Structures are given as C-alpha cells and as structure tokens.
C-alpha cells in the first residue's frame, strides 16, 4: 500500500494523431499517498510532468462516467480506483478498448451513444388520442419500480462495451449498454414500445449475439448488471415469440383530483408591471 509520498510509476498509453500513426507507452513517476486515486495521479502528471496528456474527467466521484480507462488491464473509472487497490507500484493506464482513440486516453464514444439512441431510450406511451398525457401522473407501485430500477442507474461510461467479447470483434453489435437499456424501458409498466424495440434488437447484431460471458456485469462500476438485463430481455422476446408471456404493458393514470385548490394570489408589491 502506498505510504505518504510513495513514488508510483504510471505507464500511460500516449497517442497524438498529429505526430504519430501508432500509440506508444510513456512512463511517469508520481508521488502518491494513501487514498490517491488513478485520476489524482493523471491530474498530477498533467499539471507537473506532461501538460499534453489528454483524458476525460468531470465529477471525480464516480457518477458522470467520463473517466473510464483500462487500468492494469481491467476497465475501471479512474476517479473510483485507488492506487492501493492495484496492489502494484506500476500502474498501466490505457484507453478503453473497443472504442476508437481520439488522443491519449480519450476515446470516441459517439458510436456508443448512437447505438444507445437507436433503441429509443425514452418512455413510449400513447393514449387513445396518440399522445402522452401530460396532465396527470402514471400509476407505478414500488414492485413495478423494482423490476427496472437497477438498470436505470447506468452512467453511460462505456466500460461494459470494453469488457464484452462480442463487442471486441463486432463493431455493429448493439452492446451490453444499449441492450440493457432496451430491457429497462420494456420492463417499465409506463412504456408500451416493446414491439418497436424488439424489432431493433432482433437483428444479426442484436440481442442474440450475446453469449452470457458475464464480463459486462462484472466490470460495471455502478452495479447495473447489464448481463442480467440482457438475459431478461431474451426471456421477454422468447415469450413474445411463443405468445406465452404477459400482454403489453398497460398503465393507469392517477384520477383527477376531486377538489381543486384556489390559486394563491400574488401580493401586489411582488408582481412585475
């Protein structure tokens, strides 16, 4: 475990598209102490050793998903990984695999976001008039929330894509994140777009290319368990195909309030003229 001001060697993959055609590794010595994270180390390198080092960071507390990287050959969030966890004084940092590299540790996540957009990641619910009712809430009991809540915690960091063996070879594969979000919306009782999403995921590069390697769930930093969501999605699709499952989600609206409270009058001295 690193003690106060222990020197740790960071071996970082560097790639500058203006100067090189291939990435190379560069070593830096970084002073660390107990509690120092990989992100702290990279920020130290950028501030004191190499200002050209490029990487993404934002919240520094494991909620935004910006700092996903391959740390000692395992995809993690840099802000969420302490140097002590790596059990080594040599830390290898590379960009997330299976996403194209823009520069150094920053990867192009646009293909990942496009796949996420393609599965319609929003509630699809139409009332009799073909519109979403915006005047009242949909009824949803806690048990119905439990069916999808876990999968709604996805922070779109891209770590599951880098762990998935199918994503390693198939650039057109939708990926664990998109497929898990498909299930998140199909399992939501407020949503009635399962049929639309099943058509999107039932392609040659869709849900049936997942073979339950389980690495996505293992690597996920937020416990979203995309692997579980994908297998539950397969269950739903199989039920739909065999017509053996429950019908499309139907959701009720909360009834209109019986008593409408009068509008509070704004005092004259606060009202703008």
């Amino acid at each position, binding site marked *: 475990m690193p003690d106060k001001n222990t020197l740790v060697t960071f071996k970082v993959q560097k*790639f500058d*598209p203006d100067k090189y055609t291939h*990435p190379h590794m560069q070593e830096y010595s970084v002073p660390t102490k107990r509690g120092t994270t990989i992100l702290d180390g990279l920020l130290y390198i950028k501030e004191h050793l190499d200002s050209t080092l490029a990487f993404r960071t934002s919240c520094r507390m494991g909620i935004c998903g910006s700092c996903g990287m*391959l740390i000692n*050959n*395992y*995809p993690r969030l840099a802000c969420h990984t302490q140097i002590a966890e790596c059990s080594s004084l040599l830390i290898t940092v590379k*960009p*997330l*695999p*299976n*996403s*194209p*590299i*823009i*520069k150094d540790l920053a*990867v*192009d996540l646009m293909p990942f976001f496009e796949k996420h957009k393609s599965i319609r990641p929003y509630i699809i619910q139409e009332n009799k008039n073909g519109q979403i009712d915006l005047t009242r809430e949909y009824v949803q009991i806690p048990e119905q929330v*439990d*069916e*999808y*809540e*876990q*999968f709604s*915690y996805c922070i779109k960091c891209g770590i599951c894509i*880098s*762990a998935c*063996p199918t*994503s*390693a*070879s198939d*650039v057109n594969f939708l990926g664990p994140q998109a497929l898990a979000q498909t299930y998140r919306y199909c399992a939501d009782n407020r949503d009635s777009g399962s049929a639309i999403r099943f058509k999107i995921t039932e392609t040659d590069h869709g849900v049936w290319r997942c*073979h*339950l*390697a*389980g*690495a996505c*769930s*293992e*690597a*996920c930093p*937020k*416990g*979203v*368990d995309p*692997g*579980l*969501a994908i*297998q*539950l999605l*397969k*269950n739903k699709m*199989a039920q739909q195909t065999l017509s053996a499952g429950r019908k499309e989600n139907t959701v009720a609206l909360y009834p209109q309030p019986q008593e409408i409270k009068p509008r509070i009058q704004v005092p004259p001295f606060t009202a703008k003229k």
Partner: protein
Amino acid sequence: MQTGIKPLPNQLGVGGWFWAGNYKMERYFYILHRVTGIGLLLFAFFHLFETTVFRTQGQSVWEMTMRFLDNPLFEAGLILVSLAFAIHSLNGLRLIIQELGFLIGKPQRPVYPFSDAMRRKRGVTMIFMVLIFLLMAVFIVNLLIGGAG
C-alpha cells in the same frame, strides 16, 4: 464533434474473445464453449464423411477404414472429442437455462459493494462445472477399462 480528426481503431478483435482482462469463470466458459463448439463441428464433418462414404462401400472398405482409424493419434482425438462433448453439452445446458432468464436471479437495487447476478448465482455455474468434470471422468474411466471406443 471532431473536425478533421480520424479516431484510431481500437478493437481488440478476435483476440478479445480469448482475453480482455482478468474476468471470472463465466468469461472463460464462454471461450471454452466456443472452442469446443468449433472442434465438435469440424469433427462432425469428418465423422459424417467417414460414416457416409465408407459405410456404403461394403464390409472390406469399412473394416479397412476402421483399421486406419485404429491408431493412437485418432484415439487421442476421439478422447478429446468426448471431453469436448462433455464441456459443450453441459455448459450449453447451463446457457440455455440462464439465457432464457431462469436461475439467474432478479433485479436488485445496487448497494455498494456491488454484486451482479453472475456472482450471486455462481453456485449454478459451479454445479455445472462439477457435472462436466464427472462426465469427463466417466469417459476417462471407460478409456482406462477397455480403450477408446
């Protein structure tokens, strides 16, 4: 949006099937399942050829074929095929059950330290692993008793 920058491809490719980090046993069962599947398919084509072409040409051709195949190299191959069958069939049964959403658990609110369904249901994987070893042992005992069939 980037302008004028062409990102460098960074796919692990087929190598990523075999290794992409230190993952748990389901990941390695995945690649074992793939390798045994391809091996069994190749053997199946060879076996179909042998049992269709040579079976229809009479007793002498059949017995000559069996004598040709009765050597240690092919017998070792047959043992490997038996072991591959044990792995692929039992792991396949596990995958059929879990891929259709059974024996895989239910969604849970994630509480740190996170635990995924594969970890919670690792007992299922272990049971199938034991069954695989038992079936492999049966084939090996059969070999030790009287040679490869």
